[in-house]
């Protein structure tokens, strides 16, 4: 798994970043619809470090047309314990993702098309989709529908003795957003995914049963509701999100999947200053196991022989089991109006900068103690045994209209 360092992996993005940033450096007056944004994420759990830089640019064209592009790199150093690693073998694997978006707004209607391609050494993915939305009730409501299709090719390393596999996903979603008052907005949505193909992990092996054997069909449903409220006198905003998820083996039967999940998130927004806002949030996720899965990991309180000898499906992946996660997070957003009039820096005054930090608590092997003697220090220089059970998660971004 010898591979270039994260820095080397990001080098090819340099000229592309300059090219895509050129429109932002032009001297034209600012328009809210043309926008360039850069964003980076850093994820650090007991064994895994992930760095994800991304660049996005969108531009309006005459006739109501718009175009946009996104480029992302996903640089991962070392596989996580939850993905089958038994020691923290440090390497760097990179995933490159590019997407193009084209759309048109015509009166109350808006249509959009996207195509996306993702490449990493063992996983190639292509997606395309369409969305259509319409504003109703004197533009206080928006109803939107979307469809998409994805094809993934899973390409195991030559020495793994595992054959190539693929996965097809069909997606359909509908959402309705309604302004209920000058300070209250609500949204409801339903999304459906139909997956066909290999849904396991080519690197996971059960000690008794070998490579994962999983169902090849899965219908996934997600119902979500959101409400937002702003209190002008306190310059305080509140959001509440709820999602209910369940999946099936076929449209007429739950088996062998039958997973359910509830996810709830609360967010509090508060102006600290005319241009600075803080957001405090907490996300809770609970999920029940799939019907075919049993916990066979002794280190995680399971019994290694729980699948018996005749099980049709077997998996070592805790992602199909019961567990909960928690994500408290704090985010600061700075609308940089205060830079207006300053030499050089004044150019950035129309943009906004944000940074967030969260800690992801997991009661799964993803977050268990891990002897991490060879990992390079990335933040904090503590490359030894971990005693916590979660992950640090940092995001930062800057967005500028041009």
């Amino acid at each position, binding site marked *: 798994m010898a591979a270039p360092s994260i820095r080397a992996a990001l080098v090819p993005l340099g000229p592309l970043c300059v090219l895509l940033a050129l429109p932002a450096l032009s001297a034209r007056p600012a328009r809210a619809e043309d926008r360039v*944004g850069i*964003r980076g*994420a850093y994820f650090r759990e007991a064994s895994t470090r992930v760095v994800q830089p*991304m660049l996005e640019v969108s531009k309006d064209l005459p006739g109501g047309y718009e175009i946009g592009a996104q480029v992302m790199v996903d640089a991962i150093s070392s*596989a*996580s314990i939850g*993905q089958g690693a038994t020691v923290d073998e440090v390497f760097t*694997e990179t*995933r490159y993702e590019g997407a193009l978006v084209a759309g048109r707004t015509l009166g109350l209607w808006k249509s959009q098309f996207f195509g*996306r391609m*993702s490449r*990493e050494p063992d*996983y190639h*993915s292509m997606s395309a989709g369409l969305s259509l939305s319409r504003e109703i*009730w004197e*533009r206080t*409501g928006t109803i939107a529908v*979307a469809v998409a299709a*994805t094809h*993934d090719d*899973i390409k195991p390393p030559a020495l793994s003795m595992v054959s190539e596999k693929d996965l097809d*996903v069909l997606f359909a*979603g509908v959402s309705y957003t*309604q*302004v209920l008052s*000058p*300070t209250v*907005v609500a*949204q409801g*949505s*339903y*999304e459906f*995914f139909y997956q066909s193909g290999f849904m396991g992990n080519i690197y996971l092996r059960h000690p008794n049963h070998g490579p994962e054997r999983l169902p090849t069909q899965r219908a*996934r*449903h997600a119902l979500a509701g959101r409400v*937002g*409220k702003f209190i*002008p006198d306190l310059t305080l*905003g509140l*959001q509440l999100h709820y999602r209910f*998820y369940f999946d099936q083996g076929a449209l007429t039967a*739950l088996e062998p999947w*039958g*997973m*359910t*999940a509830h*996810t709830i998130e609360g*967010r509090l927004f508060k102006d600290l200053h005319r241009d600075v806002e803080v*957001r405090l949030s907490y996300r809770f*996720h609970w999920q029940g*196991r*799939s*019907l075919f899965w049993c916990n066979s990991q002794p280190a995680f309180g399971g019994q290694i022989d729980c699948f018996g000898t005749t099980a049709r499906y077997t998996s070592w992946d805790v*992602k*199909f089991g*019961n567990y909960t996660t928690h994500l408290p997070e704090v985010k600061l957003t700075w609308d940089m109006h205060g830079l207006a009039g300053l030499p050089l820096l004044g150019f950035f005054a129309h943009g906004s900068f944000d940074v967030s930090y969260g800690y*992801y608590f997991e009661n*799964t092997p*993803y977050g268990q103690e891990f002897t991490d003697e060879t990992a390079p220090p990335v933040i904090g220089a503590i490359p030894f045994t971990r005693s916590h059970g979660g992950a640090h998660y940092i*995001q930062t971004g800057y967005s500028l209209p041009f």
Partner: protein
Amino acid sequence: MGMNRRQFRLLPLLLVLVALGGSVMAGCAHQPPPVKPWQRGHLVRRALNFDGGLESRFRQHMFSAREGAEGGYGHVGGGCGCN
């Protein structure tokens, strides 16, 4: 702890409720809108917008690699990046 058959049979009821909700919304369209154009000043606040853009996409990518549930946030997956 998965969904049992009794809950599964409630799904048609859920779909009826969704259709009923749609009908109510359609009826509302004959009422005056809840917000006049000059009352929209606060609607640009971040607390009243649910489209998280790139930030939300990054988060969902992390969750989809760690959790068994997916969807509900308007993002279509693609690519693994799931180490």
